[in-house]
């Protein structure tokens, strides 16, 4: 059963259409969603997760979000939360385990240990007890990734997991994403750095308010397609890099 299938999806912000008639099936493996600013990349993830109102059909593992909730993980943009929140790195990751307690009481020890293991997977075990406000940007991103891992999902939707992180963190995150795929999970990530797309991802969805192209990176990540997606000026700028 395909993990994510979207049919005739429309999203409006007020009167303005943000996404128009999106139909797309997420392939197995590591997929990048790419497109210019305002193309609706984050919007597509949020609509798929039922976080914003939309028209059309979203099926997760062939069923509805409510049925599939436990199998879906999400990594939002780092800037979407207040990092001055009174919590340790472990506290944040442990929140991914809260639904297992049905939202009552303290988290059992085994759930906290699972959260600690997720921190260990991203190389953050030593900083588990550090307040999140005292972490660097890259470390905060790793905490978010650990929280996503701690959901133990089969489908992971990530909003710019590689945005504004140092080179070491980027390598670490890519390693984790590839390990997830090797373990049979489906991972889709909004991605900005066009240069790294062929090295990291197997599939790409090129988006600009509508689906420009979707397929393997070799098929669709071509100069012509990039021009169609971004317009000529950015494609030239990228080519000059």
């Amino acid at each position: 059963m395909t993990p994510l299938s979207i049919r005739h999806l429309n999203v409006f912000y007020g009167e303005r259409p943000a996404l128009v008639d999106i139909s797309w099936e997420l392939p197995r493996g590591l997929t990048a969603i790419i497109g210019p600013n305002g193309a609706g990349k984050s919007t597509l993830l949020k609509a798929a997760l039922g976080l914003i109102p939309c028209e059309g059909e979203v099926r997760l593992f062939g069923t509805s979000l409510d049925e599939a909730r436990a199998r879906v993980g999400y990594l939002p943009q780092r800037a979407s939360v207040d990092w001055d929140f009174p919590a340790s790195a472990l506290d944040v990751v442990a929140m991914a385990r809260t639904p297992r307690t049905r939202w009552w009481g303290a988290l059992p020890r085994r759930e906290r240990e699972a959260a600690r293991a997720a921190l260990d997977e991203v190389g953050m075990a030593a900083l588990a007890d550090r307040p999140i406000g005292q972490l660097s940007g890259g470390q905060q991103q790793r905490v978010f990734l650990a929280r996503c891992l701690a959901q133990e999902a089969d489908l992971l939707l990530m909003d710019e997991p590689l945005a504004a992180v140092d080179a070491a963190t980027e390598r670490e995150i890519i390693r984790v994403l590839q390990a997830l795929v090797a373990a049979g999970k489906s991972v889709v990530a909004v991605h900005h750095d066009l240069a790294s797309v062929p090295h990291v991802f197997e599939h790409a969805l090129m988006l600009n308010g509508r689906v420009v192209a979707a397929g393997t990176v070799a098929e669709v990540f071509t100069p012509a397609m990039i021009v169609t997606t971004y317009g000529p000026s950015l494609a030239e700028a990228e080519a000059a890099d």
Partner: protein
Amino acid sequence: MIAHNTLVVLLGCAALGVAAGAVGCFALLRGRALLADAMGHAALPGVVGAALIGAWFGTDPRALPPLLIGGAIAGALGLWAVQALAATGRIRQDAAIGVVLASFYALGVVGLSVVQAMPAGAQAGLSHFILGQAATMRTEDAWAAGLLAMFCVVATVALFPRFRALCFDAEFAALQGLNIRVTDAALMGLILLVCIAGLPAVGLVLVVALLVLPAATARLLNQRLPGMLAASCAIGGVSGVLGALISAGHEGWPTGAAVVLVGTAFFVAALLVRRA
């Protein structure tokens, strides 16, 4: 030996401080402090309206419950008005808060002058709702405050995982299956409850400080939420006790203002301690 009346005020203020400390933590983390201020001010026309209705039926003008129920209804109406205005997308929430806070309060002030022109003592003590007067607190009021404190502490502890998830990352919590609307409504309900309960003692002008000061102080001293919550309750309770003691020792000092000043002193001290 503390006089019985002082003891009542003292315990009542302590309980109020604990309740506000507990709820204030999440009010602060959810960014609802200004909204709480608006609800406190919006309560005034409700209090005045309840007094008018009471005068019409000839009930005891000093009975608190009807006045507070009136205040709660108006406060909830004010909250709804802010959210309805902001939801239109035509003005921002801070502007909506300003509009609602000022207009409801002005309506209450006009209503107050209408009531004061009436005979039969219908206005007895109504103006105390603006700046508060804990000295008139009766034994049953202190009991009510104690029950409220217990309820707020139990509610915040029971709902702790939900409130924390809501305040840190509401979208992630929604994806995990938490009902954000219901959880947010529960938090707003608790904030409204504390605001309304604090009106007679602290007054609508200062009641927001009861929510904000202990929580903000506790945040400076704690890096994790459970510690912050406990510290906030403690600081709120101690501020209540000290404020009541200070005002009892100084003829004519309003208790609410004394409680808020003690809370401010704690806050400044925490700022200085945490500067390094």
